[in-house]
């Protein structure tokens, strides 16, 4: 595993929460069920688009 990936994993905050307002991408969204999956996938798409646009600008 390269060093960059390793550091991302180490730095990721481990979140285990029961709150419905949990940050996107965590287990909390999966735990919400159908609505959470929809929100999580939408957020991932938005993040992917943002990354693509940033790379274009560079």
């Amino acid at each position: 595993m390269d060093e960059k990936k390793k550091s991302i994993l180490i730095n990721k905050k481990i979140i285990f929460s029961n709150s419905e307002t949990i940050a996107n991408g965590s287990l909390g969204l999966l735990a919400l069920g159908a609505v959470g999956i929809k929100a999580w996938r939408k957020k991932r798409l938005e993040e992917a688009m943002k990354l693509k646009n940033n790379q274009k600008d560079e």
Partner: protein
Amino acid sequence: MNKRLAKKVLVLGWDAADWKIINPLLDAGLMPSLESLINKGVMGDIATLDPVLSPILWTSIATGKTGDKHGILNFVEPIPDQMELRPVTSTSRKCKALWNILSQNNLKSNIVGWWPSNPVEPINGTMVSNFFQKVSSEQMADWKMQEGTVYPDSLSKTLAEYRVHPTELQAEHILPFIPKAHLIDQTNDKNLSIIGKNIAECASIHAAATWLMENEPWDLTAVYFDTIDHLSHGFMRFHPPQMAGISDEKFDLFKDVVNGIYRFHDMMLERYIKLAGEDATIIILSDHGFHSDHLRPKRLPTEPMAPALEHRQFGMFCISGPNIQKDERVYGATLLDITPTILTLFGLPVGKDMDGKVLTQVFDKPVTPEYIDSWENIEGNSGNHPAELQQDPLAAAEAMKQLIDLGYIEAPDEDKTKTIEKVINETQFNLARIYLFKEQADLAEPILETLYGRTPSIARYALKYAECLQKLRKFDICVSVINHIKTLDKKELPHLDYLEGVLLVSQNKPRKALPLFKKAMETIAHMPDIHVKVGEAFIKLKEWDEAKNAFSKALEIDPENAGAHTGIGIALLRKDELEDAADHLLSSVSLIFNNPLAHYFLGEAFYRLEMYERAVEAFKVVTTYQPGNRKAHAYLVKLFTNHISNPIEAKKHSDFIMNNIKGTITIVSGMPRSGTSMMMQMLAAGGLEILTDNIRANDENNPKGYLEYQKVKSLASDNTWLHEGQNKVIKVIAQLLQHLPSNYQYKVIFMEREMEEIIQSQQIMLGKKAEVEKKIYPTALADTFKKQLEKTRSWIKAHPQFEVIYVPYTDVITNPTEVIENLSLFLDADLNTEAMVNAIDSKLYRNRKKSN
């Protein structure tokens, strides 16, 4: 129809969930959703069934019936009309499930992921099968959903989009389970993939269930999750405390997985509670527990279904909602009770053909369930599969085999045939285990006999067959099976000494069993059952302190061993430590309610403690499970006559005894001159009541008396007088045993003596002393007598109402104390040993064979 007690019912099946993992998490505040339900509801253990195999168990939960009735008996089954295997399907279920009954009563259900539920049934409501979440392709784009996965089909496309593929998951989804995931070398260690796959499948089921709860009307929603079970099988060996043989590195990496998956289930539960609403009744249960402490198996044998050895007998159960008690415990629940209880929640009657009971103690007001004979007899639109889809896969496989044998169909290759045969054998084995669990050894016997005959080298089948024979008291065949087992591979037989010991105890030879148990302890002292069996041996020997010590050892290993609680309760009862005895017996029945032995002794404890109402409760439970238990009925007569004045109840039980329960008659038998009179004299001296008319006087052949009853001579033509012999001892020669009426239980003490000695003694009695002195031996007569004896032995074996102990005449003379001890156990009577020994006059042992 009864009043409906639940507006909506939500059932969450958490396969393998165990209070032993949950309790510490609750204490640490890490499962707050479950805690909220427990605080406003009822919780308790739920006893599993045998065999502990999930598709069988979840179908029992959904039907209220055992596997022999619902037909789901294995993980896989032959595909009808093909020599192939497939995962077990819903078409193999042969009775209605809860959702079918609700359908035909116009109640809507959402059933998600139940095992087995593929193909889905056209119920009133929706169904998502247990194939929905299964990942069948490496890439999400290629992940097709097969037909029959969702009902109605109009929802297939919508729900398919909510499935989660493992490739979608990110680090945030895995790290809570393995915080040091970055240290894993994924080329050699597939554990991250395993966790990813299980989380994805769990999320898929959860998504479908929550979508349906929000978008489809429902009265019942039932959702099944297998994730706790799968991850427990994979990772419980890494759960704290660290097991011997687990490296520090692996322990450090994976020790959080099990707690993690429970916490994730609690997170999902929060969502369910919100969606279900305040007025819903929520039930959470597992089908079995999972060993998580010192009882975790150190290694698993290489045999089918070996992972089931990691399962624990008690799962978890929790119910909360309107009309349910608050902050209470329930005792004695089993998987079979869920459907009857849910039917009662909906105000529907329970089928009498269901094996479970309504958990009436969970309701906050008294509930009187209604009953009908069977829901199978009630017509209606139940949403079952059409008749042409329903098939018995084993019968279909047999039919297929016949076509192959007849040459109509090409035979598959040998490997495939062998695999299918193995599955069929294993399915039959599971059925036999179900019958044994239900105390129907007579139904298990032909199955096990066939399996043993077909595959004598498979130790598991042979061991179970031996256990079955021991329950049926077919000791001779049992011994021959055990002798065969001894020739098999020793690696598969760690417990043979234990089994032989159990056999000896059931043959009332506990003293001979103890050395075998001691030997078995060299390898299995860590298992509570060996200590329970030692305790049971000491109970038979009436050595109460030794018994108590043995059962205590079992409880040290496993405080929830119901057998140990029962045993220690009995020992304490006999030592007159009544309150402690009642305490342990209560613990036993609260763990396993279906335990008439424990209820009986509990009743006795309460009676002696003068807690008469509770004694009545206990004895009534006994008579429910064992209607023919004479002693329990007799206690109830005493209670209702002398302590809780209720002449109607007293008469009811006394009439029942009179009309239905014939007593036990003790018979002393054998050939004439084999020692039968001596045995009668001994038993009379020992304190038993003899049925005799003393018409036949003493003489020189029997100076101490014959103790006979004249009516016995005409037994062949008239046996109507046998009621005079109830609870007494009668002498009946071997040749007349077959004329005893079959509606009594008999305990037969069969005297054995050398034929030469018998003949000589008879000759002398007949005044043929001269012939004896001339050594004229009537060979033909001897042969005839021998054949008659063999015939009598076979006849006794074939008649289960005869229990027999064979007593060699010479043993009585040379080792009377041991013989009397064995008789005491056999008759379950307190015999006066000294008086019995004194009744023996060895000088009367005449006509000894020369070698004696």
